[in-house]
């Protein structure tokens, strides 16, 4: 390894670190929201649900996001490129779009998948289930038992994005993101928010289905409006930390808190819930209690202990159980199997089928291969360096050629891993002591191999 460090020092490349908290590109065009009080606001629809909408607009140059109910709104003119109409209806409102304006004013940039109809003309939904982390059932297979579930390593937003064409080709209308992960890198959150919000939600009815969503695994899909829980499901414990249990603090903490407030708005839920999952104790208290309206069943959240039900005491961090999640309307239902999930999503008598196998296989294989990469990168790099050293010391050209060939195989292995999951450029780079295994690094190494044969 020492020899390798010497080698890589020579080729150390300074790469500007990507911004961890990138929240997506700014919008060049705008939606127009016509209010009953006569105002017309220009901005963007952040999220919308049945009877409400979060609309982001600027006042005096300062951007703000405000909740409007359908009673406040006369019309919405959508900018088709930045804010297509949500594609899939949620349960019970198949024929009733949320606050979306008139159909002719709302042309989606991305054509939403249209469910096919059965022989009797009924709508047939096609549901794909994509694993966000290995389900516990993988444990019984020796090949997948040890696959880790780190967001940003095994679980990557790029894999989800790459799966979209496969889902579309297969005619999928709805996607369940099945979550089982203990968390990972905060740097992946913004990428997932963007992919799920801008790529998935306009195309498919996209829901979270939770086995265990801890930390970054809870925060990444937080922009989804719909969640379902497995009976053993749990979601929360989102405190950011590093090193020996050191908490994020200062501006970095505030950035993540703000990011998750934004994600809460996009998901149409009260930001107090996520805040209670993120901070307590020496970082400020965020207890959580709630009232349930006995008539309407509506839940009102309190960031204190004044509510009828105490969900999180002041000195603790919130993790929802499945029962709590449903009782307090964070989740829509508990579903133990894909069939249960489909029934909960589409209704007991709805027609559905499962699809998206290629996409699901792709996401799974990406997870497995990234896991292999993380665990074996050092081994591959050491073997690579050994072949280079041996080749450099070999006079016999044929023998040298064979060794360079072996070295190239190892280099290509690293390259393949990084191409398939771009996050690995940095993850593997960190493992072997370089900034990133990026294109430039590979070019330099390819050059080195060529030179060895001169």
């Amino acid at each position, binding site marked *: 390894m020492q020899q390798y460090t010497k080698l890589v020092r020579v080729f150390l490349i300074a790469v500007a670190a990507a911004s961890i908290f990138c929240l997506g590109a700014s919008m060049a065009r705008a939606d127009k929201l016509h209010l009953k009080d006569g105002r017309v606001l220009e901005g963007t629809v952040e999220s919308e649900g049945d009877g409400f909408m979060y609309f982001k607009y600027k006042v005096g140059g300062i951007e703000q996001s405000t909740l409007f109910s359908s009673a406040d709104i006369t019309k919405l003119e959508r900018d088709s490129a930045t804010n297509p109409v949500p594609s899939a209806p949620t349960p019970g409102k198949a024929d009733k779009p949320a606050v979306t304006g008139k159909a002719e004013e709302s042309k989606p940039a991305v054509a939403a998948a249209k469910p096919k109809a059965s022989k009797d003309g009924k709508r047939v939904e096609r549901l794909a289930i994509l694993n966000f982390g290995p389900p516990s059932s993988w*444990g019984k297979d020796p090949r997948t038992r040890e696959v880790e579930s780190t967001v940003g390593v095994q679980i990557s937003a790029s894999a989800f994005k790459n799966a979209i064409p496969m889902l579309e080709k297969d005619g999928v209308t709805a996607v369940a993101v099945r979550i089982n992960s203990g968390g990972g890198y905060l740097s992946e959150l913004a990428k997932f928010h963007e992919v799920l919000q801008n790529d998935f939600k306009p195309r498919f009815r996209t829901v979270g289905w939770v086995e*265990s969503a801890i930390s970054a695994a809870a925060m990444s899909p937080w922009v989804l409006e719909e969640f379902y829980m497995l009976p*053993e499901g749990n979601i*929360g*414990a989102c*405190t950011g*930390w590093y090193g020996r249990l050191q908490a994020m603090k200062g501006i970095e903490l505030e950035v993540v808190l703000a990011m998750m407030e934004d994600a809460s708005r996009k998901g149409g839920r009260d930001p107090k819930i996520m805040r209670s999952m993120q901070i307590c104790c*020496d970082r400020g208290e965020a207890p959580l209690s709630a009232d349930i309206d006995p008539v309407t069943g509506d839940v009102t959240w309190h960031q204190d202990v004044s509510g009828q039900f105490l969900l999180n005491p002041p000195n603790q961090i919130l993790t929802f159980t499945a029962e709590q999640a449903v009782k307090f309307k964070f989740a829509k239902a508990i579903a133990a199997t894909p069939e249960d999930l489909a029934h909960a999503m589409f209704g007991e008598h709805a027609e559905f089928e499962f699809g998206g196998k290629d996409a699901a296989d792709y996401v799974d294989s990406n997870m497995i291969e990234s896991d292999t990469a993380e665990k074996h990168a050092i081994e591959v790099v050491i073997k690579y360096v050994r072949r280079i050293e041996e080749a450099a010391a070999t006079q016999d050209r044929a023998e040298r050629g064979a060794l360079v060939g072996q070295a190239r195989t190892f280099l290509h292995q690293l390259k393949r891993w990084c191409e398939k999951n771009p996050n690995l450029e940095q993850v593997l780079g960190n493992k072997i002591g370089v900034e990133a295994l990026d294109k430039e690094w590979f070019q330099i190494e390819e050059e080195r191999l060529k030179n060895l044969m001169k």
Partner: protein
Amino acid sequence: MRNTMRRLAGFIAAGAAALAATALAGADAQSARPARPDQPAGKQAKLVGDAAEAAKIYMITFTGEYGRDESITPMRRVMEDARKLQPDIIVVKVDCEFKKFGKEKRDFEPDLGSFDQMESVRQMAVLVTDDIDFGAEWAKKPRMVFWVKKALGGVAFLPFACKEIYYTSDAKHGGIGYLDLLFDGVGDEVVREKQRSLRLGRAIGISAKGGYDDHIIKAMARADYVLSVSFEGGKPTWHEDESGDILLTDDGNKEAGRRDTVEDAVRYRGNDVLTLDAEWASRLGVSRGTCNTDEELFFALGVARNHEVLPGKADSILHEWGKGVSDGELAIKRLRRELREVRVKPPAEYAERTAARGRRKAILKQMLEFLTRYEESINPDAIEANPPNLIQQIKLQIDQIDQEQRRDKR
């Protein structure tokens, strides 16, 4: 109740040292393993009543150290064996030693590390719940029953995955307490609370599969959790304060003198955390009944008059696995010693150098075989290495030997 946790911890540490000394004075502590109450070849079939109508029962006994003697690979084999025999009922009797990595704990001690076995429990829970309930391979869906005698530490979570739990009259179920002290003194409190929260969330998740109330798991896990109970029509109603008729757990506040004393702890009279026994498991609605013999259990299951205990291989599969792990650990230690002792024989020519490399490579391959076969159960202390790291090192050593051989000239 006025003594501090420090006294308790000191007492526990002294006792543990004494126990360790006793173990070292005896036989090889790593390989010592209590005999299973079965025949290695498998259970003898036993029929009571009419064979055609008899309820078929498949028995599994967890003994030894959970995570070592019972882990996912042998348990998968056990469930495959069970499936072939198509039982009506599968009974898992849990009578494990309270141990981790060979280190024994006394029954009244908490094991903060028990939550680290959560992943293995979650994976194993799938085998005894979802696979049966939803898997097409199980054409006939048996009742899954846990029968608890001693389930302390990580294994304590597993029975909660199933809807039917029975207890022996001397049962102890718990040993997962003081989660609120996990990582005490390390880092920031908010992060420690996050770590506790996620572990408790996952533990409650397992118990939710079996339909148990989350109050019970919280009271078993956190010393600062206050729970009292009242009974209405025999059913418990929970109070997260002291307002119920019976205080199950107080807040264990050390400063206020409410932390359990040593005297209380060793007599199982403490109330910092809940440890279920037969009586309380029954009163709190966890236990379906108290049974001390197979016959009593079959009676409680409603099959006393007509049942057949199937000749399953469960106990022999688990026994062979545990023995394999112990043998493997000893073999790895021996092979590491042998590896160090490999010398190039005189005159140290090409042939001798090649022979020495061949011997080293053969030893490394043997080590690799043991490590990969038993990785999930091997005790790192027993082989003085972390198994995944050692596997990687061995692969690189083999590569290096090949490289040396290529470079070597006659």
